[in-house]
């Protein structure tokens, strides 16, 4: 249940896919962190995630969390982007039967869910077939 501040502070990642790249080992981290889990370096430069990748695994959620009730059933997968970063997100704009491991997808900016009748509209990335 996002409060405005909790929602707002994730906007750079959810809207613009802002990530960081470790200056020492080159690993791209998303979401950004303060220390690199690969080499312990604390020096980073800003970067933007690749916008294409392939599906590593997926599922169809048929018993959803309450804020997703109006969307179920829906597909969620883990996608490995072309820069090596792995993301979890919904896979949309295709039939469930057509989703396959290895399938190419791209990220698109979409509404994720509505927080109640007068609450926040929550946006972010989803995956669509390339």
């Amino acid at each position: 249940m996002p409060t405005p501040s909790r929602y707002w502070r994730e906007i750079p990642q959810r809207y613009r896919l802002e990530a960081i790249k470790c200056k020492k080992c080159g690993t791209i981290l998303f979401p950004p962190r303060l220390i690199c889990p690969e080499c312990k370096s604390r020096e980073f430069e800003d970067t933007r995630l690749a916008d294409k990748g392939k599906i590593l695994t997926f599922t169809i959620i048929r018993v959803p969390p309450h804020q997703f009730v109006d969307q179920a059933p829906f597909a969620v997968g883990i996608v490995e982007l072309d820069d090596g970063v792995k993301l979890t997100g919904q896979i949309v704009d295709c039939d469930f039967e057509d989703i396959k491991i290895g399938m190419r997808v791209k990220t698109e900016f979409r509404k994720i869910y509505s927080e109640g009748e007068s609450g926040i509209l929550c946006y972010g990335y989803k995956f669509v077939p390339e």
Partner: protein
Amino acid sequence: MREVAVIGVGMTKWGELWEKSLRTIFTETALLALDDAGVDKIDSMYVGSMSSGLFVGQEHIASLLADYLAQTPVPSARVETACASGGLALRLGFMEVASGMSDVVLVGGVEKMTDVNGYEATYALGTAADQEYEGYHGITFPGLYALIARAHMEKYGTTREQLALVAVKNHSNGAKNPLAQFPFEITVDSVLNSVMVADPLRILDCSPITDGAAALVLSPAEMAKKMKKPVVKIIGTGQATDTIALNQRKDITWLEATFQAAKQAYAMAGKKPEEIDFLEVHDCFTIAEICVIEALGMVEKGKGGQAYEDEITFLEGKIPVNPSGGLKAKGHPVGATGVAQAIEIVKQLRGEAGERQLKDPKIGLAQNMGGSGGSSVVHIFERE
């Protein structure tokens, strides 16, 4: 470090216990454990509970439970590593006795999950995943394990039937456990025809929502030797962490925290996987048990599914897994699970497991896991 033994265990029947509160179900089991140990005073206590705040709106339960057990002012701490909270409570209790800080320590676990509705329970359990980068996109816990299952099937050829056999085996064992929430048998067909929750996992691949508690009493092994019951020692303990977000792992099918926790426990116990007589492991979903026996070194990486077709993990098999019925049939009151696993090991090693008693086991291993594998705790027990 002193040798540590389990001198008392207590558990009551698990299920939807609408008439009982969190404090009552905990205190019942703690009293049984104290009675079994023959002690009425403890030096300290640890309680595993994942989310009493979200499930019953009550935090600060360490003191609440010490009070209702009539043990104030002893020190009491609640510990949390999601569904591995009970296992962690055991590890901390072990460390306190082993260090010489305390002689008699009560270790308990409790979760009261049916005071909230299904959506609220799904939310509470979901907080064990990365809320900002997994939960935000609508994934649930069955969904996370479904992601693991699909990847395991793709990579290793694990079949839908092999997954079903995990649940069939655990229900077959649970049918012999009078304290289990679902003490009845199921078939592969019933699993494969049950309601789909998150493809490819169906409702009978999932452990249930449960109210329950479990408790045990630890003491130095020297003290245990003066008692009448067989002495069951904890000879190894290990705990490890991994990313809580599944997408951050190098290999989605591999439970690194379980592998690392087991490595520590094996080294401390001076035992190898092949020396373990039986296991109690964290089968929150059928795929979890398959991945866990791989990470514990019971079978080769990727061969977990085959172990169920070969029935080596069945009650009569070479390495029985979850004689208690596991989380699937016994129930999964999340914070209590790790403690209940230890209790099953003690009962088996003492020869008190009734209809599901294994033939003269000497060494048992318990593995308890939090989230999609972000925490894992392993203990090895030996009967003297």
